[in-house]
């Protein structure tokens, strides 16, 4: 009798190599399913069991999950874009034109990165308001709300630093407007502005600094805070299910 696909999969899951990678092993019982989460460095941030109520669409609108989704899409498309991009003046702009006319699917890549970035800013804001209106920020989840505010600011900074990178008129003047706003901070404003731009105006130094911030410092910082954010969900007793709420 021919083996079914399932048979092949469970045989694969029983092999020594598979077991060395995924210690959980084969079989569809709840122990295996628990181990699948618990033994995985990424999934173990989540608890093994989750309340059924918090899984309903009504509870979260999946806004947090979707925010993570945009972050992942942005990381992948961002790394691919880095292969075609030089953070120098005026080569950065020439690279935009190359993406448009030379690189296969270059326009699509840039479109996906740009629209995902806007979607992420929007989704993160929406996530915040949804959490607020559900009252999910209340004790014991106070600190995770604060982590969320940090992530909101990181999202805005990521988007803002990325805005300069095409080095077109839109980018240049948007960053100039933002940087001028910063110089209105009392006492330290001018210093902050100089530190951020690497000069007194938006120039090649600013482009390099924004590039490093956008591609290295901010994504890594965001990843660390994301990990804390997810881990705290488990530590604070799982997703908010609205128990104890009269509504």
């Amino acid at each position, binding site marked *: 009798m021919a083996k079914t696909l399932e048979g092949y999969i469970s045989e694969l899951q029983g092999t020594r190599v598979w077991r060395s990678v995924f210690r959980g092993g084969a079989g569809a019982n709840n122990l295996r399913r628990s181990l699948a989460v618990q033994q995985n460095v990424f999934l173990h941030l989540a608890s093994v069991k989750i309340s059924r109520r918090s899984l309903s669409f009504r509870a979260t609108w999946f806004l947090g999950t979707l925010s993570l989704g*945009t972050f992942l899409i942005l990381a992948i498309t961002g790394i691919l874009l880095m292969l075609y991009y030089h953070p120098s003046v005026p080569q950065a702009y020439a690279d935009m034109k190359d993406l448009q006319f030379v690189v296969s699917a270059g326009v699509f890549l840039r479109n996906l990165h740009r*629209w995902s970035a806007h979607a992420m800013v929007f989704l993160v804001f929406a996530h915040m308001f949804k959490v607020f209106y559900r009252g999910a920020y209340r004790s014991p989840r106070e600190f995770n709300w604060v982590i969320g505010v940090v992530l909101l600011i990181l999202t805005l900074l990521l988007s803002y630093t990325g805005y300069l990178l095409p080095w077109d008129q839109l980018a240049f003047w948007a960053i100039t407007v933002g940087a001028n706003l910063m110089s209105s901070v009392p006492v330290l404003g001018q210093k902050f502005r100089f530190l951020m731009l690497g000069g007194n105006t938006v120039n090649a130094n600013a482009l390099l600094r924004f590039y490093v911030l956008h591609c290295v410092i901010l994504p890594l910082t965001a990843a660390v805070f994301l990990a804390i954010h997810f881990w705290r969900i488990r530590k604070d007793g799982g997703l908010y299910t609205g128990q104890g709420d009269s509504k």
Partner: protein
Amino acid sequence: MTDEKKFVTGLDSDSRRTPLRLAFVTRRTSPQVKVTDDPVVMTYPEGILRAVVAVQSLAIALVVISLIWDAPLEELADPMHTPNPAKAPWYFLGLQELLHYFPPVVAGVIIPGLVVAALIVIPYFNINIEAEGIWLKNRQRRLRIFGAVVVIFSAVMLLFQVYAVLMPTLTIAAFMLAAARSAPDSPVRFRRWLVSKPVAYWVMTWFLVQASVLTIIGTFFRGPGWSWIWPWRS
């Protein structure tokens, strides 16, 4: 009865030499897990699968959007040639709109600083933790405070001619007054809903409406010299 302790405490990291261990479980240090009779399911596959489907749907939507609309790309950056108007990214246009009315230190530093500070303290702001309707207790006193706040705030906005802030504020205030004039057992469902809303809800809603209105104005209704334009009449 004896007062003699049944254990000794000490500091030793070598578990072979001193194998005895004592665990102190103190209050508020353990993971905060409440026991509930809420039905639970396995995270894998129930939760993971839903997350994957959600992210996949989003990815498909974004791919379709990216195939249809191209990201904007203007001319090469030219520090000698300022576009009119020069606009920040859309999520900062609310602030840029405020910059039109207030000095930079107010619009660029004090207001965003206050917003971030307010967001951080929200969960620690223990007033009204039961989230009961604002008008259900001390109605007269609260109405007086509310009236004073709205009048002073509106007067300042009028002084600076910030109608983009004044109008949404008065709209929210009107809804709050409607809530104050509604009974918890009103036959109208909308009134029952209004009266059940706590003060935190009203403040956040005011912030949401305000931020949206300012952002929309900054994005669509501002032209050369930050003058008012109608987007359909370009």
